């Protein structure tokens, strides 16, 4: 107990004993009180949170730290890479044979389309010239490997092995052999982050392939997506294929995105709840194709009268009192 009392005495003695030229013994130097330090660091973190969330001003810091930490990250992938190699080595021959056969069959199935594609494209160019429409430019792609899923459990992101060095920039669409899987949101020198379609922050303009109905598809988490803001009586059926409409200028039109799996038309709400499942292997790993950026859409005409000035249709225009 005696020792305990001494320690209390020592703690309660302030560092007042420091005479000029006499530094206090080092065990008196405690710095600010813990609560003060806590308040300081918590407020600093909150400032960072707001700065990143609201103003997106910290991307340069992130880029710098990520570049410095790149070799370390490469080292930490070694165990996973090794495990993958061992797993690949142990893969059954029958699995490989089956996969090979499946791929050959699919190639034959699409050969017909591929052989005629060039012909169709030229025909398309001629028809578009006849119709005096803007030519649809071919978009080149760059093959990238999906390295791993980001560790952050709150969002759906994957890291691919191409970055600024390979000409990738934020905003490019990423597809696999079936359809769209996401969009590049952040680029580092040698890697890039792809936000998957199923993330809650991701939205993509689509149209129903069957009838051309336009809508916005947004991630709903848990590997699903939701078709938002469609009226309860909208012409959508279970099994409909949704393709990109290309209205946003990011995604090429006509790429398959998702399939409608469930429609909940509750008359209590004005919108139907339409659940969709992604067509591409969004949650799978493997190779992906990063499509080149599209040309900017023509600027919106600004000589049009703004909507606010026009009287809304169906409403009576109030006459000005004289």
């Amino acid at each position: 107990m005696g020792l305990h009392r001494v320690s209390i005495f020592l703690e309660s003695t302030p560092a007042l004993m420091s005479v000029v030229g006499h530094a206090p013994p080092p065990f008196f130097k405690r710095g600010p009180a813990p609560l003060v330090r806590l308040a300081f660091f918590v407020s600093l973190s909150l400032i960072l949170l707001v700065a990143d969330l609201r103003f997106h001003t910290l991307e340069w810091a992130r880029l710098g730290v990520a570049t410095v930490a790149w070799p370390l990250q490469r080292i930490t992938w070694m165990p996973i890479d090794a495990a993958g190699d061992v797993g690949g080595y142990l893969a059954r021959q029958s699995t490989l044979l089956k996969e090979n056969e499946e791929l050959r069959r699919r190639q034959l199935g699409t050969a017909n389309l591929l052989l005629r594609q060039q012909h169709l494209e030229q025909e398309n160019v001629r028809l578009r010239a006849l119709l005096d429409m803007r030519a649809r430019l071919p978009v080149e792609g760059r093959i990238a490997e999906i390295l791993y899923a980001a560790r952050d459990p709150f969002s759906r992101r994957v890291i691919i092995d191409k970055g600024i060095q390979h000409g990738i920039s934020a905003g490019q669409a990423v597809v696999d052999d079936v359809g769209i899987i996401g969009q590049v949101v952040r680029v580092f020198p040698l890697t890039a982050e792809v936000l998957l379609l199923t993330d809650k922050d991701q939205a993509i303009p689509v149209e129903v392939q069957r009838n051309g109905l336009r809508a916005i598809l947004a991630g709903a988490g848990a590997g699903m997506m939701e078709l938002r803001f469609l009226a309860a009586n909208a012409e959508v059926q279970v099994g409909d294929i949704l393709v990109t409409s290309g209205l946003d200028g990011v995604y090429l039109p006509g790429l398959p995105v998702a399939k409608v799996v469930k429609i909940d038309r509750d008359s209590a709400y004005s919108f139907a709840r339409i659940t969709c499942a992604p067509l591409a292997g969004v949650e799978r790993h493997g190779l992906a194709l990063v499509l080149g950026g599209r040309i900017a859409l023509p600027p919106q005409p600004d000589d049009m009268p703004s909507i606010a000035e026009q009287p809304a249709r169906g409403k009576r225009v109030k006459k000005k009192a004289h």
Partner: protein
Amino acid sequence: MQPTHASRRILLPVRNWFIVLTLFLALLLNLIPFGRLPGIPDWVALVLAFWCVHQPLKVGMAAAFVLGLAMDVADASLMGQHALAYVLLAFAAAGLSRRVLWFPLSQQALQLLPLFLGMQLVMMATRMLSGAEFPGVLWFLSSFTAALLWHPVTYLLLIPQFRPEDKDVHRPI
């Protein structure tokens, strides 16, 4: 009756480079891309809590803040999310340090479990306020793994401080 310290061994003073090394190794362990595998502990939080409990004067909220920033970048998460959670964890662990070391290791782990869970709750609150999705209940499994690992980690990190067996009978301790 006063409970005794479980290890009852007199430890050598800790070396600063060893603390830095262990925190760095924990950071490396956290960088291993396990994806969404549940139950992988947050190694940085575990080692940080350990040093905050054992050496509250050397490792504190400043270290927690810097490590949190590093994790924010590595995790591609919101800037400040890990920093905030780690700072709160370091504060709580340092507050616990006077008391918790008198208990046997299993009970220490039980007392640290709420800290780890609280840290995860803080992270979840910050992310869900910013509109992210719920990561699922299984995500909280990593706190329980961290608490289970408290026992082996204590022995592992105290190895350099264990006084070598001294046969000299004339020494007082």
